[in-house]
């Protein structure tokens, strides 16, 4: 594939992530923060998001397995995950966290465990999609192209 085809494939892929709700406009904000002085900003922030999220998901699992579940702690973890997913534009993860926080108030362990599975699924889906996005970007750059920017309106 030549550069133009690679760029086109990248654009289409990114658009699909907006179309299925994986990403929202906040992701575009991150892309706009990336420039020559900060060329890897998006990958850096998203990588940070991955490592923080995986730790939070582990903490959530273990806190829900405790003999006496501390729901305030559970809520605090979910709040963190909601915050960082919102900040990078990982919309579906954010929405799953919002649902989870609602359940924390009801203090039902089975419901929370089911919701945690949902959050994990959304997280893994987003992670997979973003990793693929970054791979496609690398291919464009390796072929000598630059990453096309997506307008907030398109």
């Amino acid at each position, binding site marked *: 594939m030549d550069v133009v085809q690679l760029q086109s494939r990248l654009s289409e892929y990114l658009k699909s992530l907006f179309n299925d709700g994986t990403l929202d406009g906040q992701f575009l904000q991150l892309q706009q*923060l990336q420039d020559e002085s*900060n060329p890897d*900003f998006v990958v*850096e*922030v998203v990588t*940070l998001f991955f490592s923080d999220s995986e730790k939070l998901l582990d903490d959530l699992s273990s806190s829900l397995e405790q003999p006496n579940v501390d729901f305030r702690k559970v809520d605090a973890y979910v709040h963190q995950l*909601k*915050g960082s997913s919102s*900040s990078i534009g990982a919309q579906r993860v954010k929405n799953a966290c919002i649902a989870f926080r609602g359940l924390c108030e009801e203090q039902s362990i089975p419901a929370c465990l089911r919701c945690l599975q949902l959050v994990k699924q959304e997280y893994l889906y987003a992670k997979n999609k973003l990793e693929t996005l970054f791979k496609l970007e690398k291919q464009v750059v390796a072929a000598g192209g630059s990453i096309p920017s997506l307008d907030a309106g398109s």
Partner: protein
Amino acid sequence: MASYYASSSSSGEVTADHRDFPHVLAVDDNHVDRKIIETMLRNSSCRVTTVENGTRALEYLGLRDGQPNSATLVSSAGCQFPVMVILPSSYEIPMPIQQASKVNLVITDYCMPGMTGYELLKKIKGSSFLKEVPVVIVSSENVPTRINKCLEEGAKMFMLKPLKQSDVKKLRCHLLNCRS
């Protein structure tokens, strides 16, 4: 009697006009958010220091338990050579304004474990040498009572997360001498 020994870094303080590159202290327990706010502020020509909680913020600002800490007192003297100061422990030295201008703005998350952003705001506004430092509160939750409470306590602005670059640019203009 308390005795303190400190060597001063004579031009450890910034020489550039702080109006061109204001120094912002950003407080947030979320690692991702700290990275993003730092970049947004740098893109708005600010120097940025980030800390992860209110306690660290107060230490950086030179407050410990509501009192200026002694190392801060001595380093702000601006001396060229090492200084030994012997103070009775009850003595309170009025803090020169110079120390307060080390930070031109504090931007803090509201929801943080331990000390909330609101509590940090109160401590800053309650301090004679820090109360003029503008404080901005950010939160992911749009709760009118929370917003009012912060503004009443002296916060200059309350902004909703997730922040956009344009929010930070506006803040820079309104609060940090956009006039050139």
